[in-house]
């Protein structure tokens, strides 16, 4: 039970309920048809009993009517006798119909018919004497004939049949009772089994739901903790960067003043050391600025506005003031997208300035392009610079990772990490295509539906 999932359990519960319902239906159907059959059989038996009784009574009636006619000679008695005989016939055929499924009784009915016919023949024989020869002759035949004997045999046969039918009726009733008891027992067992199975399922599901609720609560708690931790981390990056800057500035200023104030006391080596201090202070300042920029992405949201990238990219190129030997061009039109302007500017600024900064060819070319895709814009910045080996393609997007020694190319190692973070914040992707020695292309996508999910600070 434990291994079943809640879905399976619910399904099993439904399947079981359906099966129980079907079984109950089948049982009820069988019980009902059985009951109807038994009832019909019992009804037919009862009718047969009544018919037998009726036949005997009518036989007596016919006989006494005939006797009345013999004594009094009234035609009305003769008519009564004929009526009784006709009724006997119809009762017998009814009896035959009712007992059509009982061969033993059918044989008996046949015998009964013969006896009735025999008896009728006798009655007719007496009646004939009365009509032909008068009362005395009929009386004579009545007294000497085997009429009484026949009637006794007929009665006995009818009694035998009635007792058999009675036994059969009792047996039918017993059968019906047995069937009803079986059905009740079946229902009872089914009910008990259903209750047991459904209880097990119910408790299983309840336990599972309880466990799930517990897990949900734990998860919510965890999410809350994570949010708190994330918030703290964001604040941490900001505060640390800020608080690092003040002492750094102090070191820079003090080194500067020493250089100026103590100029005549310092030898060249001392001056060189102080110069190095100042240059390292600048580098560290750049790193802290980078951390601040990096931590600001996603933490501080500004209003997303439609930004004309055509204009923005040209502004970026102007602000970077590329040297004369590097041509930076925009090839093809650039779209207007709804984004945070500061962020998209950072993306283009970093990609283009990298292309300029690392250019190693006498005639540098940097091209910005845009290709529309199905539900995104794909931008690219292509240069003919030194290129990047494939094994570094992942590394360059990591924070503080640079490929050139910092003393040769002043770089914080934040730019591309920042680009990646911004692009991914908008649900896009960034990647490199490069042939070492011939140049690189930085691609990034921007979904057309891009936009920060939280309203930010208005500028």
């Amino acid at each position: 039970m434990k291994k079943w999932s809640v879905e399976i359990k619910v399904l099993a519960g439904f399947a079981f309920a359906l099966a129980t319902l079907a079984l109950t239906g089948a049982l009820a159907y069988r019980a009902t048809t059985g009951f109807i059959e038994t009832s019909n059989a019992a009804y037919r038996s009862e009718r047969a009993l009544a018919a037998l009784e009726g036949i005997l009574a009518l036989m007596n009636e016919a006989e006494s009517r005939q006797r009345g006619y013999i004594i009094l000679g009234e035609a009305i008695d003769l008519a009564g006798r004929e009526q009784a005989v006709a009724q006997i016939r119809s009762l017998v055929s009814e009896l035959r119909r009712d007992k059509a499924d009982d061969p033993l009784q059918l044989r008996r009915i046949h015998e009964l018919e013969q006896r009735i016919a025999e008896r009728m023949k006798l009655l007719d024989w007496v009646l004939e004497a009365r009509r032909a020869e008068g009362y005395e002759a009929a009386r004579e035949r009545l007294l000497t004939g085997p009429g009484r004997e026949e009637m006794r045999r007929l009665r006995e046969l009818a009694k035998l049949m009635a007792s058999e039918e009675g036994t059969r009726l009792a047996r039918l009733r017993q059968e019906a009772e047995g069937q009803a008891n079986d059905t009740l027992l079946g229902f009872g067992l089914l009910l008990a089994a259903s209750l047991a199975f459904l209880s097990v399922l119910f408790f299983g599901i309840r336990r599972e739901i309880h466990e799930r609720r517990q897990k949900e609560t734990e998860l919510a708690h965890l999410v809350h903790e994570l949010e708190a931790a994330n918030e703290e981390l964001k604040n941490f990056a900001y505060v640390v960067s800020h608080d690092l800057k003040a002492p750094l500035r102090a070191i820079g200023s003090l080194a500067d003043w020493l250089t100026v104030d103590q100029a005549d006391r310092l030898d060249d080596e001392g001056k060189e050391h102080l110069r190095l201090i100042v240059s390292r202070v600048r580098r560290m300042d750049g790193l802290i600025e980078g951390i601040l920029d990096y931590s600001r992405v996603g933490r501080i949201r500004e209003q997303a506005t439609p930004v004309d990238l055509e204009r923005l990219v040209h502004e970026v190129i102007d602000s970077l003031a590329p040297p004369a030997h590097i041509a930076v061009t925009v090839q093809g039109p650039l779209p207007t997208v709804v984004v945070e302007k500061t962020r998209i500017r950072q993306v283009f600024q970093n990609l283009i300035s990298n292309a300029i900064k690392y250019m190693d060819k006498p005639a540098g070319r940097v091209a910005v392009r845009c290709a529309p895709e199905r539900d995104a814009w794909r931008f690219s910045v292509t240069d003919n610079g030194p290129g990047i080996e494939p094994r570094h393609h992942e590394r360059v997007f990591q924070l503080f990772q640079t490929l050139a020694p910092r003393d040769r190319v002043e770089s914080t190692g934040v730019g591309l990490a920042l680009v990646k973070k911004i692009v991914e914040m908008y649900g896009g992707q960034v990647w490199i295509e490069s042939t070492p020695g011939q140049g690189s292309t930085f691609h990034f996508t921007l979904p057309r539906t891009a936009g920060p999910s939280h309203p930010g600070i208005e500028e």
Partner: protein
Amino acid sequence: MKYASKPILLVEDDQVDAMTVRRALRELHVANPLEHVENGEAALEALRGAGGQRPCIILLDLNMPVMSGIEFLQVVKADAALRRIPVVVLTTSSEQQDKVDSFNLGVAGYMRKPVDYQQFVELIRSIDAYWTLSELPE
């Protein structure tokens, strides 16, 4: 500065930053006396204290203990007697929120402290040049 006799009020908790401002002013031969306090509360005391002369300009750091620059601005700009003194924010912060808050509270300028001392001197030179030209209400 236009009125060389009026003091400059520097609200700054970092000692070396204060030295930097003092040195830059000296280097630029700015004659105004420099009054230095370490937080917003001390600045309010100095401004409201008897006898002291109104400064011609306030150079204000934002991130300070006891009373921050923004809190100081909220008090000063609500005070009819003090609200017209120009305040130039001189801070490390480049946070958008700090800029928004400062300008909402009517600062006359917002300068980020450069790490490089020479740039710092240039910055102070610009402030001095501007407030030498700019008219101020009496």
